[in-house]
């Protein structure tokens, strides 16, 4: 590190942060100005993320573009940034999604016209500032290579999310003259539930973080949270966790991530949060924020506590499979569009976690890819669902029917989103889902098979949803429904294009991901199970 190197990662995280402040500073009256400003900043972030991806050389050093400065010496905390393949793709995902989220939510924070105009307090600039704040925190927690630094933003991002969920919801579902109040109550409940769940998870993780510090401090003299440092120390034997302490600390970390991810049975906050939040915010939750949880499992649980991870794998894998089937079954039983999608997401997170803990290269690459694909597909589905809901002013599936007759394009995009969600081959999610399944199957055949059953249920809930809302005779209240506007098409079309492209040619991503996954697996001292026969070798030999 000679001379000044441009702190690319810091800037990437800082730009949205500054954007948040700037947007918040825009006077509340100038709504449009705030929107455009926020959008500009998010696009700038996307550009930076692209640069990061460009500067990242797959198969190079494990952590690249690293930055390292002293921060809180007494806590052994350093400001350390660095990205591996997994982080890069997730940063890219975040940066890609946020602008679409903003476009989709363009009018979500406008004053409500309705029975009681402006009763609800919805500052536009606040809405967009909060989104940018979340983006900044997510990005930096992907970049952090210091456990404490990560933890701080892992926790801090709850605050803006909380206000996004509780402060801005779409009027939908409740009926009657006090609908406003009903919605507000529900929304508040959801926001508090979200915050408490994650806060409890975070606090338990805090105990584990402190435990980690205690261990490192005792064995290395000075406590440290630097991931590379710890890995190095463990590699050359200066640091050694006792079995029990490693397990306890692992559990502390994992609990927090499992709440965030969310893993069955810690999932119940997600449906409420996603249902009550506006569709774009819901996208922010599942597609972006929750990914931090799974990402953290992959980076922190596995790399810091390989033995404990292996020790816990059977249980976690089973929970994950339960989550897959459970989420899917509940999705089938839902009467509320967004709730259905939320449970679908729970099922998908089951796949991701299963992939992470199957600990085979296919499964983990698949899981990482899954994070990206799920992000995009859910975004597509949810945002279209959001357009649908805002048009009808209701989330109840029963209130829809025959939409495809009046709004074919909307219906079409919705169907594509749905097909992506049921991971139809040719669309991106298929690749990742199949990788996870194969990877799992090679180590845990039974779990692999059970998980595969999930694809039938996926087809079931997606197609049932489509049939009930889009097909059949046109329901009352749907007749006048407008088809997608240009702005909305601008949101959906690129996402669908991405889904198709990554479904046909995911190689660019896998090339970035694979080396990182290899490293992770070598941390856990896991190798893929050998096949019965290596037919490829035979053939090439011939």
């Amino acid at each position, binding site marked *: 590190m000679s001379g000044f190197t441009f702190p690319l990662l810091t800037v990437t995280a800082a730009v949205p942060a500054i954007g948040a402040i700037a947007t918040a500073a825009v006077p509340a009256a100038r709504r449009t100005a705030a929107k455009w400003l926020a959008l500009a900043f998010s696009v700038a972030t996307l550009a930076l993320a692209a640069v990061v991806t460009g500067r990242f050389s797959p198969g190079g050093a494990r952590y690249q573009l690293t930055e390292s400065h002293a921060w809180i010496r007494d806590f052994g905390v350093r400001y350390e940034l660095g990205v591996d393949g997994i982080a890069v793709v997730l940063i890219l995902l975040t940066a890609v999604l946020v602008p679409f989220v903003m476009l989709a939510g363009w009018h979500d924070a406008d004053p409500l016209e309705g029975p009681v105009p402006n009763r609800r307090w919805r500052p536009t600039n606040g809405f967009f500032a909060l989104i940018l704040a979340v983006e900044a925190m997510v990005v930096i927690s992907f970049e952090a290579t210091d456990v404490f630094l990560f933890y701080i933003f892992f926790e801090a991002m709850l605050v803006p999310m909380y206000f996004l969920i509780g402060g801005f919801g779409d009027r939908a579902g409740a009926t009657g003259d006090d609908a406003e109040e009903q919605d507000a109550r529900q929304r508040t409940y959801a926001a508090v539930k979200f915050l408490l*769940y994650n806060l409890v998870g975070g606090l338990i993780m805090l105990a584990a973080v402190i435990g980690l510090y205690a261990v490192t401090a005792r064995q290395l003299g000075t406590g440290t949270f630097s991931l590379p440092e710890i890995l190095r120390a463990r590699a050359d034997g200066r640091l050694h966790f006792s079995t029990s302490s490693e397990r306890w600390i692992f559990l502390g970390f994992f609990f927090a991530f499992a709440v965030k991810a969310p893993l069955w049975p810690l*999932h*119940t906050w997600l449906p409420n949060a996603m249902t009550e939040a506006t569709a774009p915010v819901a996208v922010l939750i599942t597609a972006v924020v929750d990914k931090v949880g799974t990402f953290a499992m992959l980076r922190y649980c596995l790399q810091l506590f390989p033995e404990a991870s292996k020790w816990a794998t059977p249980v976690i894998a089973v929970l994950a499979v339960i989550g897959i089937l*459970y989420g899917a*079954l*509940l999705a089938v*039983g*839902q009467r509320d569009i967004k709730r259905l999608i939320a449970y679908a997401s729970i099922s998908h997170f089951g796949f991701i976690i299963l992939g992470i803990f199957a600990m085979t*290269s*296919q499964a983990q*690459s*698949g899981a990482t890819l899954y994070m990206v694909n799920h992000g995009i597909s859910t975004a597509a589905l949810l945002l279209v669902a959001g357009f649908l809901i805002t048009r009808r002013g209701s989330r109840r599936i029963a209130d829809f029917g*025959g939409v*495809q*007759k009046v709004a074919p394009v909307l219906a*079409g995009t919705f169907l594509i989103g749905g*097909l992506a969600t049921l991971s*139809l*081959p040719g669309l991106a999610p*298929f*690749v990742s889902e*199949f*990788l996870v*399944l*194969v990877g799992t*199957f*090679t180590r845990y*055949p039974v779990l*692999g098979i059970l998980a*595969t059953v999930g*694809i*039938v249920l996926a*087809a*079931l809930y997606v*197609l*049932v949803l489509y*049939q009930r809302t*889009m*097909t*059949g*005779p*046109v329901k009352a209240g749907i007749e006048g429904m407008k088809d997608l506007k240009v702005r909305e098409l601008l949101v959906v079309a690129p996402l669908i294009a991405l889904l198709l492209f990554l479904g*046909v*040619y*995911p*190689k660019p991503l*896998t090339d970035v991901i*694979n080396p990182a996954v*290899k490293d992770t697996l070598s941390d856990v001292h896991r190798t*893929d*199970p050998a*096949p*019965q*026969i290596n*037919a*490829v*070798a*035979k*053939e090439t030999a*011939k």
Partner: protein
Amino acid sequence: MDHLIGALVGAPLLGAAVLLLGGRRLDRIGHWVGTLLAAVSFALGVALFADMLSKDTGRRTFTSHLFTWVPVDSFRADVGFQLDQLSMTFVLLITGVGTLIHIYSIGYMAHDERRRRFFGYLNLFLAAMLLLVLANNYLLLYVGWEGVGLASYLLIGFWQHKPSAATAAKKAFIVNRVGDVGLSIAIMLLFTTFNSFSFSPVFGAVRDASGGRLTAIGLLLLLAACGKSAQVPLQSWLGDAMEGPTPVSALIHAATMVTAGVYLVTRSGAIFNASATAQLAVCVVGAVTLIFGAIVGCAKDDIKKALAGSTMSQIGYMMLAAGLGPVGYVFAIMHLVTHGFFKAGLFLGAGSVMHGMNDEVDMRKFGGLRGYMPVTFITFGLGYLAIIGFPGLSGFWTKDKIIEAAFAKGGGEGWVLGVVALIGAGVTAFYMTRVMLMTFFGEKRWQPDAQGHQPHPHESPKSMTVPMIILAFGSVFAGGLFSLNSSFLHWLEPVTGYSEGHSPLTAWQVSVATFVVLVVGAGLAWQQYGRKPVPAVAPRGSVLTRAARRDLLQDDFNHVVLVRGGEHLTRTLVHLDHSLVDGAVNGTAAGVGGVSARLRKVQNGFVRSYAVSMLGGAAVLVAATLLMRGI
């Protein structure tokens, strides 16, 4: 060459993209674009065929590798094609029949304002189906496999405003998904066994693999085949699939897609050959289905559903053949092709009839149409003769071979299968004759439709009749052509392999037996529907009949066990999720609140009680300190 294959698949794909994204401005020319591109890919197919014929038998297999699709460590999925005689056959069938049906649809869908999209979907189907048969590895095949599933979903549900259509489409997709589970698990098993799922390495290494795994793979593939080819127990969707426009039924649910299962089994011959168990399973499924379908076909009054039952049963024959191994593969495919011709022809005929009878499907409301739509009558008749295996026509050549091969399996199994196949032939003759008589003979039983329009039967336009005629030719001559110094056998043998079976009966014995059974079946039908007038409303009929009308209650079984059970399960789970999982958390919160409320009471505002607690605290403090020291 790569480019040709690429273009072969690409042309219809392009069509689909253009038509679906093109928007309304393409409405006027959409159907032409679709048809043209289908024709283009047919032309390409023919070109490739010619090229293949120019090569000598050994070097006809051509593989091309476009790009690496999903590379993760040893897991390597490629986008690559394998064009050999087997896939060539399918390419020609798909593009050929496909093009004809495109042409037919121009006329048939003329009055539908969403015709452009219809053609888009058709093209999408062609592309997916071609991908399915051209893929050089199972994962890519899976893509095509689901692609045709999607196309079929879209086309069955094309008239989405009809709830029945939407439901049928959903049902078809989901039932197929069940099969897909089999396919994907099979692929995983292939990967863990062979470290690959591309055809050539896998088939090359089969003999080293453990039998158990091979059997498992075989059975899983069979499950997939059952889903796609509507074989028992996953056949329930095919009947409902008739909700789709008739050309769809002809192309997808008669000629091509439903035969994909047969293709899969034949393609995986190497694996099945290595596992007698799996083969037997295939045979059994085939046998059961061919009877099942036939019986259903006998009871349906809806012309399309009757034909659907027949399709089921004919594919049963193919499955049976494919299950016999090298003895039968060739004949399975041969029957598949001829069936493609005559069944497509029959469906188009049925469509033409409906076209003339303002979309009436109930055969009890037809009758005496032969005079009103001669071309339809003749083409349909030829198809009829072909399917019942009238000597000299296509069906005769192919079906007899299968029956013969079934006997050739030898031993008890051989007899059972053979006899079943034989009976099947008889039943086929029965229900097809029934259809024929009820539709074209007897007195008119026409009735006005819902809007009260009296039907004015008339011949369909050229765009519809021409394809029917062409297909009729196919159904008359194809079989003979193929059997001419067993050209088809030699053509396909390099891929599928062939072994002469040792039938206990000689070829002519089988033929005679078949013919007899045929005559009996047809006779019975004439007895019941030709001699006495057909009642306009179906008589109650025997238990078997009633069961057959309800698809032998298989649907009801599904409904009660799966649907009801599933609904119940989900409802319970939803409840539990709220009360139990969520309740636990909320309960804790409430608990804390309760404790808090109770503890609050201690803060009663009285100085003296505060003092008491202070004194108590002091006492405890002192006592504890003393205890620590053990004083």
